[in-house]
């Protein structure tokens, strides 16, 4: 009986402490890890900005295995964290199962759509950002041949490639776009050696600007482009600093803004489908001190004009994922 009382007391204490921590937001990083120089790191930056501006704190966890997804979600939800933000499309299934069990907790998932009343789904219009960097690539190219190197051959990456090709052809209808995918397994995200070989192969076909949307493989692409003295384009985070003066620009996905907004809105935020595009500065091109010298006034003007048109809807960039086909590029 005394043992039982102790247990009950402990449970009550836990419940109380959970109550005290109520409304502290939580952030769950995907398997890529918090410091991946890209997607997850951007999410972390957004959360940190929120913490600095508000003086509050947030909880976080880096997943180590697939099995932890649901566990992490449930533990944060039971501990009273609200909202719970997660990065990556891979959370889709786990969240779909968990969301219904915690109707009073708000969830935010990035890069995936989960249809539940307490979930905000944030997706990015990568094709629009890729269109903009495609325009810049076409203007920077002297050989009228530009390249694209994707990581794993999945629809999301084809979406990048398709937007890019449309941007290139919009500036120069005679340009050639060479597109290669690194592979068809997840190993394709971390094969910089193959990224280098693909870059060299594209250079031998005449490419002088190469856009990499390939995770860790992209590091090899950017490196080889710098070694061989051609231009490259980074992705997700601002990668201009990796090889200053050799990276034309980076197509940035403002995952940090998505996380910042979610945490600022707090519990009771607006739910549903949230699209981050060129119009609301969800995607865009990175221009900083490392690549300023490469950007001509013409390029800047063209990008600004296209951004305005995309934002007001007068220019529509075809989304590969809408119908699994691309008018400007064949895979």
């Amino acid at each position, binding site marked *: 009986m005394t043992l039982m009382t102790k247990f009950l007391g402990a449970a009550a204490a836990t419940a109380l402490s959970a109550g005290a921590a109520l409304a502290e937001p939580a952030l769950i990083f995907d398997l890529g890890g918090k410091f991946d120089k890209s997607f997850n790191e951007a999410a972390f930056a957004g959360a940190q900005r929120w913490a600095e501006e508000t003086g509050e704190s947030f909880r976080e966890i880096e997943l180590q295995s697939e099995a932890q997804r649901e566990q992490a979600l449930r533990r944060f939800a039971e501990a009273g964290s609200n909202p719970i933000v997660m990065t990556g499309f891979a959370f889709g299934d786990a969240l779909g199962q968990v969301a219904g069990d915690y109707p009073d907790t708000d969830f935010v998932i990035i890069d995936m759509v989960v249809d539940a009343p307490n979930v905000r789904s944030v997706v990015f219009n990568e094709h629009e950002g890729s269109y903009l960097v495609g325009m810049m690539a076409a203007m920077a190219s002297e050989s009228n041949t530009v390249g694209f190197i994707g990581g794993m051959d999945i629809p999301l990456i084809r979406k990048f490639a398709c937007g890019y090709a449309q941007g290139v052809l919009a500036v120069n209808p005679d340009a050639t776009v060479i597109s290669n995918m690194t*592979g068809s397994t997840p190993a394709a995200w*971390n*094969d*910089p050696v193959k990224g280098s*070989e693909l870059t060299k192969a594209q250079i031998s076909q005449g490419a002088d600007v190469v856009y990499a949307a390939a995770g*860790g493989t992209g*590091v*090899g692409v950017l*490196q080889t482009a710098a070694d061989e003295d051609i231009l490259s384009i980074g992705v997700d985070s601002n990668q201009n600093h990796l090889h200053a003066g050799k990276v034309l620009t980076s197509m940035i996905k403002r995952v940090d803004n998505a996380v910042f907004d979610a945490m600022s809105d707090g519990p009771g935020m607006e739910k549903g489908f949230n699209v981050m595009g060129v119009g609301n500065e969800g995607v865009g091109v990175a221009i900083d001190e490392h690549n300023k010298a490469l950007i001509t006034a013409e390029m800047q003007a063209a990008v600004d004009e296209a951004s305005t048109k995309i934002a007001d809807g007068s220019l529509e960039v075809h989304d590969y994922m809408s119908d699994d086909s691309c008018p400007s590029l064949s895979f």
Partner: protein
Amino acid sequence: MDYITLIQLFDSTVRLATPLLLACLAGLFSERAGIFDIGLDGKMLAAAFFSAAVASLTGNVWLGLLAGIAASMALSLLHGLASITFRGNQLISGVAINFLAAGLTVLIAQDWFQQGGRTPSLIGGARFSPITLPFADDVAQTPIIGPLYAELISGHSILVYLAFLAVPATWWLLYRTRFGLRLRAVGENPAAVDTAGVSVVGLRYAAVLICGVLCGVAGAYLSTALQAGFIKDMSAGRGYIALAALIFAKWRPWYALWATLLFGLFGALETRPDVIEALVNFKVQGQLLAALPYVMTVIILAGFVGKAIPPRAGGEPYVKER
């Protein structure tokens, strides 16, 4: 397809085949001595990390290479300890080494550099740079031979030349020295070697250590010559393709060279879908080329093209009769 494209294709073949060749020869030494080694990939990965890490910390790529070799040899010793001294299952030990390397490299990289399991980019002397062979620039304009010499033969890092020299060296060591004879014998019939008064355990340890050295060079080539730094899982399964090449080569050094060059050529062709399309007039999916090394290995194993007979005592821990 013009001549220059062909040269470029072969140039890429050489670069892609080099790590495979080194790992394949590494496996050859180990397996010829009766120790199966599926931990080639893990050893390459560990060597890739430690060579890049030490090169970045010291700024000297040669120290990096030594560190990579040392890391790979340490894993080899672990494999030897488990499978020779303690007579454990060689396959399980190899798998364990792969897991260990995949986890440890990222963990240590994060602890040392805080860059998400990467090393900083290597610059200057922290990287193996291409070597221009004598007269390469002078003869580059000569038709046919010029580009062949200047583009294909010249302009690789020193590790590439080392890898190609390792083939005759391996052949000589295995077939023309007493050590080689004993090493091959210990993989076929360790009891006979033991009867002759030669240490089976000593020979097998020597074999796995040589395997460690070669894997170390292969890993260092990935991170300090082909690339400028380490990225998690950057070996991308090359150790397994090297194993396939080893079977394809029927455990022989010269065949290993041809097998890895062939697999390297598949890799190079995968990067040039336009060339294949021009050759066969229809689009070939890259996945097919990526799968070809494995398909061909299965064909060889099934006995359609000759017969691949592994060393007879391979995979068996040696137990002295009492």
